């Protein structure tokens, strides 16, 4: 039997949801795994909701379009409403605390709440909230190695932003800490 992780990442356009997915996908190929990154595309990308499906697998991914997910990383309320029911039983749902007004209610999945935007503001760079979310996810679901994630950052970030890589790394590490605290609270 092969292993496959199916993840939905969703939020508003501009929150870095798509690039968060790309980092994950890129890290997967550096780890020699198979992957697909499928964005929702179209006019809704500006200001509206943006989401992407990332699949990381041991073997060639069949359908890049799926309706049920092992994990969700959710950064706004409309996406929460859309995707909370789409998480598989015993799956994981990560969400950003301040942008999701009505927290998820399911009790058959593990829910991890991260104050990513607040933490990013503490780091004086609001844009790294997505990396804090990614870090939280990776702490719970280490489907790719940290080493590969750092290499992936270099590939995904445009060269003019490469000076921000250490900050992004910090953000990921901070996300991991936050997830760990959350898990202790949950369990």
């Amino acid at each position, binding site marked *: 039997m092969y292993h496959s992780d199916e993840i939905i990442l969703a939020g508003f356009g501009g929150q870095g949801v798509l690039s968060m997915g790309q980092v994950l996908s890129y890290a997967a190929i550096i780890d020699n795994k198979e992957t697909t990154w*499928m964005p929702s595309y179209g006019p809704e990308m500006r200001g509206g909701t943006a989401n992407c499906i990332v699949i990381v697998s041991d073997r060639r991914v069949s359908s890049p379009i799926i309706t049920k997910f092992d994990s969700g990383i959710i950064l706004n309320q409309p996406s929460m409403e859309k995707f909370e029911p789409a998480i598989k039983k015993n799956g994981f749902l990560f969400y950003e605390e301040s942008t999701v007004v009505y927290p998820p209610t399911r009790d058959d999945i593990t829910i991890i709440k991260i104050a990513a935007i607040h933490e990013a503001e503490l780091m004086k760079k609001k844009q790294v909230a997505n990396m804090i979310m990614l870090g939280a996810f990776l702490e719970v679901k280490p489907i790719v190695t940290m080493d590969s994630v750092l290499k992936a950052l270099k590939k995904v970030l445009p060269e003019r932003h490469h000076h921000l890589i250490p900050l992004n790394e910090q953000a990921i590490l901070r996300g991991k800490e936050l997830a760990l605290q959350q898990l202790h609270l949950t369990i």
Partner: protein
Amino acid sequence: MEREIRLMKGNEAMAEAAIRAGMKAYFGYPITPQSEVMEYLFEQMPKRNFKVLQAESEVAAINMIYGAAGSGARVMTSSSSPGMSLMQEGISYIAAAELPCLLANIVRGGPGLGTIQPSQGDYFQAVKGGGHGDYKLIVLAPNSVQEMADFVFDGFKLAEKFRGPAMILSDGALGQMMEKVALLPEGSLPHTVPAWAATGKPANRPPNVITSLYIEPEKMEMINHTLQAKYKQLQKEEVRYEDYQTEDADIVLTAFGLSSRICQKAVDLAREQGIKAGLLRPITLFPFPEKKIAEIAETAKVFLDVEMNAGQMVEDVRLAVNGKKPVYFKGRMGGIIPSPEEILHEIEQISEQVLSYQN
């Protein structure tokens, strides 16, 4: 050959592959969901050895392709459905004048202005000719980002071997999604300017003329015979398909492009339930794998064709099955992508109704 591994969007992978395949010029017009192709090429142009020009319309772009192909250059254009409709006149001329070139249609939902979401509604247009007169395109249908890149090489090779237009028939989802792609190195597909090209007449040869005009019907019929002979040869030599567990399958799905990925998952899900399902994916839509389908029709009990349209390839599947077995169809239209569960449901129903009845 050493391949470089990257994570790329289908459209970008196609553009990068075109550069590596030695494309000399690209002429295009922006249209969603494939504008990344030209954007990527413009970004790369100063660093590499090819040219891109943004035309005033798809009509102009395809005629620039005609001119550049007639000059013996390896050329390519890409568009999406409404734009590809505009190009049909020029494609007919290109086919008639026997000019090799590569076209890519990143299909979106139609008819009309339609939607920018993915569709397979242009199968007929691509496979049955599309413009006026008796001609065919060589049609390659990728189902992954890897194939979006690889089929650029295959497309150029076939177009040049058979002196005619080849098309990559893809869709918005494959164009926009990212996957791992292993890219062939630059210079791996050599090209020489063919002897028939209009590049300026040296004293020692008669003029080379690129034309599709033959007023005398006898000559025009001869040209048609030449074209038809090429299409026959293509049907004989260049058919490609992917066979996924059809050998012992009771129910065989047929699907191309993105649909085939979804069907593959549906087949896996069906097999988990003990339903013997399989998938035959035509890779070349023309030439169509009719022989292979006819062969499967001897062993399979029922076919289910799945497309993102109202049922286009299913006509070719039915011709190939030739009444031997029932052929069902499941389609979504207007930019909707069916889910694997939806297809599984269809398989289950057919399995229950048809297969249990037959047993």
